[in-house]
């Protein structure tokens, strides 16, 4: 220990955050599955951002003559019951899917982090009440809760994002509360308190930066769940409304033609699987790389 300290003091080291990032990326790159997951996510994001501009076609352009065509040279993924090109629709749908995934996790993450950190920091009644509310939210099977919220708010993409966001809150709150309880006990929190720091300052400047790793991991994993839930809602007809090229909604539309035009459900279904799998694998890899001790 002391030898190490000496070495570090003598050599002028670069910012330890940079150092930490280096060891983190080294660990992450060693995990082949995580790298593949990350690349897939990157690819999907690029496709979602750039794809619509390259294709320049209308995903809702109908061509009833060509309806229910199997995959071919002109229509890579075939066409649907209105003769719309499924490949184009999937590319345009990528943006919707990512929007739902990122925005809902962003909303849920912000609320969850604030709730968790406040509950963990103040403890007592605040903790008990907020955490019991979180327990109630957790007691609902995920999709059922989102379903309930959407049926109250009405079916639209924005409402799906809100619903999935709310449904992500307890997961963040619980993890953040646990980490806050650990950090709160540390002596440097007492030390800044003794220097006159306010509660807000302690929470946001001293506790939050120290619990970022579990939050990042949780956010990545939650994106997968959010995408899955949103697709599920769309499949049930409660999410993005037709003719929006949402993958879940496409699955729903293809359901009736499953027997004679299986490509209508196969491609959107496959995309959902690939994206969800990629986020899950990447999230696992992130967790292992950020905190090897968390690995069970």
């Amino acid at each position, binding site marked *: 220990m002391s030898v190490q300290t000496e070495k*570090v003091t003598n050599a002028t080291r670069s910012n*330890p955050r940079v150092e930490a990032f280096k060891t983190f990326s080294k660990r992450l790159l060693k995990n082949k599955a995580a790298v593949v997951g990350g690349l897939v996510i990157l690819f999907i994001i690029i496709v979602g951002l750039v794809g619509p501009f390259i294709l320049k076609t209308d995903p809702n352009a109908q061509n009833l003559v060509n309806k229910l065509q199997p995959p071919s040279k002109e229509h890579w993924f075939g066409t649907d019951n209105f003769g719309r090109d499924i490949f184009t629709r999937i590319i345009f749908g990528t943006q919707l899917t990512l929007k739902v995934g990122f925005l809902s996790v962003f909303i849920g993450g912000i609320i969850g982090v604030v709730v968790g950190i406040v509950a963990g920091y103040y403890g007592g009644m605040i903790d008990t009440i907020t955490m019991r509310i979180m327990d109630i939210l957790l007691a609902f099977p995920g999709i059922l809760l989102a379903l309930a919220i959407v049926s109250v708010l009405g079916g639209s993409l924005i409402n799906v994002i809100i619903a999935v966001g709310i449904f992500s809150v307890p997961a963040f709150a619980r993890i953040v509360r646990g980490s806050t309880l650990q950090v709160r006990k540390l002596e440097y929190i*007492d*030390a800044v308190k003794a*220097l*006159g*720091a306010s509660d807000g300052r302690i929470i946001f400047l001293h506790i939050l930066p*120290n619990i970022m790793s579990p939050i990042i991991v949780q956010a990545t994993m939650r994106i997968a769940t959010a995408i899955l839930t949103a697709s599920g809602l769309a499949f049930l007809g409660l999410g993005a409304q037709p003719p929006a090229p949402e993958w879940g909604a496409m699955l729903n539309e293809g359901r009736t033609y499953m027997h004679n035009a299986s490509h209508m459900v196969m491609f959107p279904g496959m995309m959902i699987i690939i994206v969800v799998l990629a986020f899950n694998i990447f999230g696992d890899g992130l967790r292992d790389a950020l905190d090897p001790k968390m690995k069970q």
Partner: protein
Amino acid sequence: MTQQLENILEVNNLQTVFATEGGEVRAVDGVSFVVPKGKTIGIVGESGSGKSITSLSILRLLAKNGKVNDGEILFKGKDLLKLTDKQMRDIRGNQISMIFQEPMTSLNPVYTVGQQISETLIIHKKISKQEAMKQSVDMLKLVGIPSPEKRVKQYPHELSGGMRQRVMIAMALACDPEILIADEPTTALDVTIQAQILELIRDLQNRLDMSVIMITHDLGVVAETCDYVAVMYAGQVVEYSDVRTLFKNPKHPYTLGLLNSLPRHDVDQEKLIPIKGMVPSPHDMPVGCRFAPRCPVATQACHTKPPMLESIGNNEQIRCWMYSEEWDGDSEVTLYGEKRTVKG
């Protein structure tokens, strides 16, 4: 008491209790002492004697289950216990600062040393980050850290324990406080570093003309740094006097016991004499004098009636029946192999 000196802090009859599963526990029970301006007062006692709780009570940093039940803490005439949370925050780190025992864990690992010293300045002086960083360099220079311009940019894990304690001191002193509370500042450091840190605190105290409350279990630290000493036992002050008197002519049997359990280099000692018994559990305090069960000269009265903290001489206060008119024991007693004549 020292009339010629202004008392910057006065603690009167402080009583701090903790709600525990076994009921309410009085961790600090009727503690009084004064801190004269520019002087160092030592609070000595063994673990659980309430010395740290006393200091946390002063800054109102007690854990959630603890509260000050009674008493007053007068800082320049203002009762700290009556201030709002906001007013109290303005005092912490600005007028009364504290340094902690564990320099290894008392710094936030995600910020540089400079950022952490700046924080105190930004909170209280409302100055810009650049200005605060400049002053942080000066603070590091003040606490004797070489090449401060380089050090401000370093993170806590890049510094040794002694260095970190210096950084803690720099953080505590950044706003030029009038009182520094040092809670066992050297306990976690090795001996050579201990001496340096104590020397630093003493030197800064003279230069900045501040008062220091030194909380320690180490009588050696007291002898080296303090002007006045309050000896605490089981949540009470049992003896208060200036440091010379305390070491030359200790009065309370507990103080004597403490001194006797230390190795000395001026006399030959066959072996050290420990104080027999254990500190009483806070759930089960003796009815009379709290030290009576361990006291070699305790009488019937000692076991039944609690003694008060009485002034004897001009600068001394003792909580012991032996020095009162009501003493019912012999007029000459033998305490740890030493004959003493007491009032009878």
